[in-house]
């Protein structure tokens, strides 16, 4: 080790900051080197001087000033908090009032929208489920099983259906939309499929459209039967919501009701539109004619000044009925299905004011 290297390490000898090996080598060197010994002695004296420097005392005002500023800082921090919540006698009533106001507005909004929430919220998923569940049931019998086999499915539909009046009446917009959708979704594909199947089964020389008409003819028969049964049960007279409440056991029921009611309106074979001065007396007259002619399942509904009669009547009695109706008022006729002898036809008589 050279003297220059030793001088670089000597400051570390002051407080023993060097490793022991280094210390011993330096001590050995110092024994033989006078200049390095002098340098080390100067370092020691320097260290003593530094350590002997008098300490200064803090002025008494230092602590006072520091604490005054600290308390001021704390007060400012607290101030932000206080601005929000204090003074209590002002802020608490304001905040309480605001809470009450918010609660009241929330309650009011809920109350105002409650009927709509009840109508809207549960219906859509249930209707979809019911539609999905219904479609296969309708399809299966159409594939060639007898008419009687189809009846349970139709009956089930009718059990949830409101009276026909509700189907035909102009209902609130939202309900109408649901019905249209469900009718489009549920009825049309089933009908089309059924007609197509029947057309395939029909003799080759017949037109496919005739087969479809036959399908339409068959369906109202079943629908009316089901309707008559449902009337006995007084289910059809109750609104859809009431049916749902009464039943309450099957989840799909309340939501499925509007859909099902739209899915099974009886489609008449014959439609008469009659204009009379007084629709009500004319209807009463027509109703008595129907009963005279032995009509079955006579139903009467009044709406918007019109009266609608539906009934089933023997084909042979149609001509007599036509004549009797003409004597009551001005009659227009629309034939949906050509009558076949020996059977029943479904008729619909709409009596309008002149």
């Amino acid at each position, binding site marked *: 080790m050279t003297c220059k290297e030793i001088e670089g390490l000597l400051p570390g000898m002051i407080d023993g900051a060097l490793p022991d090996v280094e210390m011993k080598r330096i001590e050995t060197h110092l024994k033989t080197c006078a200049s390095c010994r002098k340098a080390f002695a100067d370092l020691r004296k320097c260290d003593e001087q530094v350590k002997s*420097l008098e300490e200064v005392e803090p002025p008494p005002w*230092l602590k006072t000033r520091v604490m005054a500023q600290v308390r001021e800082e704390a007060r400012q921090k607290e101030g932000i908090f206080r601005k929000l919540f204090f003074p209590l006698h002002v802020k608490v009533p304001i905040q309480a009032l605001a809470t009450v106001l918010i609660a009241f507005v929330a309650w009011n909004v809920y109350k105002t929208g409650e009927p709509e929430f009840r109508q809207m919220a549960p219906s859509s998923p249930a209707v979809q489920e019911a539609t999905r569940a219904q479609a296969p049931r309708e399809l299966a019998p159409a594939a060639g099983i007898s008419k009687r086999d189809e009846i349970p499915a139709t009956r089930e539909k009718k059990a949830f259906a409101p009276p026909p009046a509700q189907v035909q009446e102009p209902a609130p917009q939202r309900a109408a939309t649901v019905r249209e959708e469900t009718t489009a979704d549920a009825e049309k594909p089933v009908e089309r499929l059924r007609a197509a199947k029947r057309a395939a089964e029909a003799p080759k020389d017949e037109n496919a459209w005739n087969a479809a008409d036959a399908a339409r003819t068959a369906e109202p028969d079943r629908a009316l039967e089901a309707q008559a049964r449902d009337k006995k049960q007084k289910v059809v007279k109750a609104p859809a919501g009431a049916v749902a409440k009464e039943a309450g056991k099957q989840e799909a029921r309340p939501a499925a009701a509007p859909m099902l009611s739209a899915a099974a309106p009886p489609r008449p074979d014959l439609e008469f539109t009659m204009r009379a001065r007084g629709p009500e007396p004319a209807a009463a007259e027509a109703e008595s004619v129907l009963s005279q002619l032995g009509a079955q399942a006579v139903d009467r509904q009044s709406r918007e000044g019109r009266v609608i009669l539906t009934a089933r009547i023997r084909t042979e009695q149609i001509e007599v009925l036509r004549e009797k109706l003409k004597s009551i008022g001005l009659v227009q006729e629309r034939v949906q299905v050509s009558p076949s002898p020996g059977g029943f036809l479904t008729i619909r008589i709409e009596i309008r004011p002149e």
Partner: protein
Amino acid sequence: MTDDEDVKAVLLCQKGEPDAFEILVERHQKRMLNVAYRMLGDYEEACDVVQEAFIAAYRAIHSFRREAAFSTWLYGIVVNCARNRIKQAKGRLRHEARSIDDPVGLQDGSLQSELPDCGESVVERLEKKEVEARVQACIRTLEPDQREVLILRDIQGFSYEEIGGMLKLPDGTVKSRLFRARAALKDCLVNVLGDWP
């Protein structure tokens, strides 16, 4: 006085009791002032720096996580404040009125003529004062980073570990800076004092 007392006071401050900070001020103000005074060489300025450091510490006391001793954290703040003050007022300090232990007044002998002759003790005191002033002057000639380490280690007696914590430096850097500071101070004092007392 232990570091536990510091921790208790710090916790109280963190809970929102500013009065507890007075304990910390009481405990550390003298040492902090001496660190600042030796770094700056001006008593009034050192007092300002200590005050500034205490306020900075109070503002940041919620961020103190007890990873190191509170004293280490606090002295780190005061060293930092003093360092900033030196940087800001470098020119001003050089040209403004001299510090309390400025040796210039002693060099021209004016101070000795003003002082009453009160016997040997006064002379001894003046001699001591003169030596101290020259030591302080030499300390001020050191590079700021060397000066910090010398003050903290040789004057205040902090350990290398504590100094490393305050200055955020590894031990090796602290030691090398300290050795250079001691060597430079020795050279300065040999030159200033001539015959070593």
